[in-house]
């Protein structure tokens, strides 16, 4: 369960709407805002994968100008990788797919 701290930059006029929407996200906590449109956001997810989707979704939200990472903690995931529990989910197959090589 990785945990990440972000700074979201919202358009000032949309700040409240953005905060409301962020609070609807599972695993998201808003830890403060200011009048420049900054939002301190903590995300927690079942996996890095899920968190990535959520973060990407936030950058696409109306009123959001940017999202930057401040802190990232992923000890559980490190352990899962070490234990071989997390495998790349797609095949890395070696065969060449030369269907379009001229």
């Amino acid at each position: 369960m990785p945990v990440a701290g972000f700074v979201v930059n919202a358009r000032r006029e949309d700040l409240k709407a953005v905060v409301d929407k962020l609070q609807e996200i599972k695993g998201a906590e808003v830890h403060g805002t200011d009048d420049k449109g900054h939002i301190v956001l903590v995300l927690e997810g079942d996996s890095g994968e899920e968190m990535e989707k959520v973060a990407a979704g936030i950058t696409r939200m109306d009123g959001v100008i940017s999202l930057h990472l401040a802190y990232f903690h992923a000890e559980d995931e490190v352990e899962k990788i070490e234990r071989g529990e997390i495998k790349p989910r797609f095949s890395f197959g070696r065969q060449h797919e030369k269907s379009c090589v001229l």
Partner: protein
Amino acid sequence: MAMTRRDFIKASAAASAALLVGINPGKAKTAQAATTQDVDKWVRGVCRFCGVGCRVELGLKDGRPVALRGVSGSKTNLGFLCMKGMLFHRIMYHPDRLKKPLYRERKDQPFKEISWEEALDIAAAKFAQAVKEHGPESVAYYGSGQCLTEETYIFQKVMRAGLRSNNVEGNPRLCMASAVGGYLTSFGADEPIGAYEDIEKAYCFFIIGSNMAEAHPVIFRRLMRRKLDKPQEVKVINADPRVSPTSRIADMHLQFTPGTDLALLNSMAYVIIEEKLYDEEFIKNYCKFKKPGKPVTDVGFEDYKAYLADYTPERTASLCGGNITAENIRQAARMFATSRGTMSFWCMGINQRIRGVWANNLIHNLHMLTGQLCKPGADSFSLTGQPNACGGVREGGGLCHILPGHRPVKIDKLRHQVEDLWGVPRGRIPKKPGYHTVAMFSAVNEGKIKAIWINCTSPAQSLPNCDKYRKGMAREDVFMVVTEIFPTKTTELANLVLPTAFHFEKTGVYGCTERRSQLTVKTVDAPGEAKPEVWIVREWALKLAEKLNDPVIKKCVEPFVGLDEDFDLPKAIWDEYTQKITAGRDNDLRGATYEVLMQMADGVQWPAPTKEHALKGGTYKKFVRGIDPLADKHAKDDKPYVFYGPAHKDAKLYFWLRPYKGAAEEPDSEYPFFLSTGRIIDHWHTTSMTGRIPELMRANPYAYVEINPKDAARLGIKPGDMVEVTTRRGKCVLPAKIYVGPMEGMVFVYWHDMHEDRMINRVTKDAFDPGSKEPEFKICACRISRVSGPKQLRPFIVQM
């Protein structure tokens, strides 16, 4: 209620983010206590994933990296990181990391694991054999802007002085070479004059040929913040054929037809002169006007003005097409000229042009014309893609024509200086530059290069028109060594694959875009038998010396024999490079010793000739008296600026009279579209690293082709349809994204996908700038046609 460890971690996350923006962390009050709960300790380093050079801290628990954070107040990034910052641990622990040397005699055989002893012996024997049988020109090194400075420096030393070959190149040729050419010919000195901290002092930003929001997100953040803090006073002009996320904060978006950038830049100069917005004093004090040709002739302001007569805004607007009007060229020129500080930013859109050096010159012309240089908030600032293209490759001698310390190899005096400093006989380094990148891989194709060492880059994927060059790399008579952390398209073509240590698994310096050198010290062990490159080169060179019975090769690495590879070895290499080689040069780094860099959390900006100066952070702005110690040293009068750059003996800045020049391959009736390429934020370079991170792959799993809705409607292409993109060199099939990004008549493809069908560099053009030898990746002609409706696709990554 008692806090769980998880609560502490969340509190830490909140506190770290809150600190960056000065918000009271509220719920995270207990954060102070939390810092001891989430990790055992934080170690400092620099992010390796792009040229911005963000300072980071890696969090260790039981000696393993488990966390990462930005640090409030860091000079480069002010503590903010982009999403790529989350990758470290997943790369470090990834099961696909290369862990043992792999070898096969023939490229159609499977690899087998061998020992380091055997591997180095084979590498030395093959290079020695090539030199003996075919001469020094038959061996080559192709490196990367991701290598540490120590690595590039030691590799090129062994190649040049040891093997007597200037065939030393690196992938910055593909992205930075035109910027180097531009700075040298315009300002007489490579690399930007100013720094990121000018952003907070600037009032106008001119962004051309760069999608900063995606390629340099943290610098973009500073710029965005500046604009949002002073929305009325600060103006942003974005000039690009494609609307990108960077355009979001622009007051004005100039969408020009690809290849017409030079005309647009000249036209802005036309307006500035016509409306008398230029800085006469600055021009008189510091500038000269040069008419290219053989020989180059000195001309005057009036000639320059006459020369620009062809570029009236009216004529230029019709040439540029898109949404450009004469009036918005005028407006842009006025904003640029009259602001209290104008900063230009550009990247590949300008550099990867058939006349990329000219395009760079023309941006510099605008800054000279308006005196938008050297003062706070003003600079002509080229962005860099890779973490150490500047520090390692541009400064450390990583291109075929330059020796370390910004010395052109063909200048006898400078070459002899280096030979003397290295203690090798004069004449040991050849005078003639080696093969530049495209020529190097052409020579591989022709079988002229018999042994090539590719370090930390994947030319089999990243060269333009790469099918052509993969054929050469696949030749059985070309021996190829690849040092890498992961399998790539290039390791597939290698005879010998050597596993290397990754960032934080070895020690060394990165020099980012703003002349800043930052040290990262080894913190964790590399997996398996992976080794730092500096060790690999030293051991290889010792074997080469034996096999070629050549004491001079041994001499190249003699000062480093026996030193511990984790710290003392890179330190000794850095010491030699900085204390001997940069002494007295414009990138003087003598003050930036490891000892100093360990103290300076944000590193040091050169020139930093003394420790005292380095301990103050070095030089924020070059050429300004009172700030740059070399400006004070070289001053001959009491003017505030001294342009002492090594390439202009007269200490002047040069205006170049450069004409408009279109793309090497313009659309025609057969190939009616412009094809342009670029990268996306979550992917970086050839995905050998970030492609392995599953969630990022899922965010943007495939390359796709962006098509303007009007063109799509005309051709009956719907979102997700499979579209064939055909150029004179081949074709790719990609899903369509219908999007107002590219202008009509242009399509755009991201170039991170390793799948054969979607690897766009197989079809881009390998024409290159005759000055910088940088290929024109950005533009070629293509046609598109719908082949089918949406199809299920499979992501593709190479695995051994």
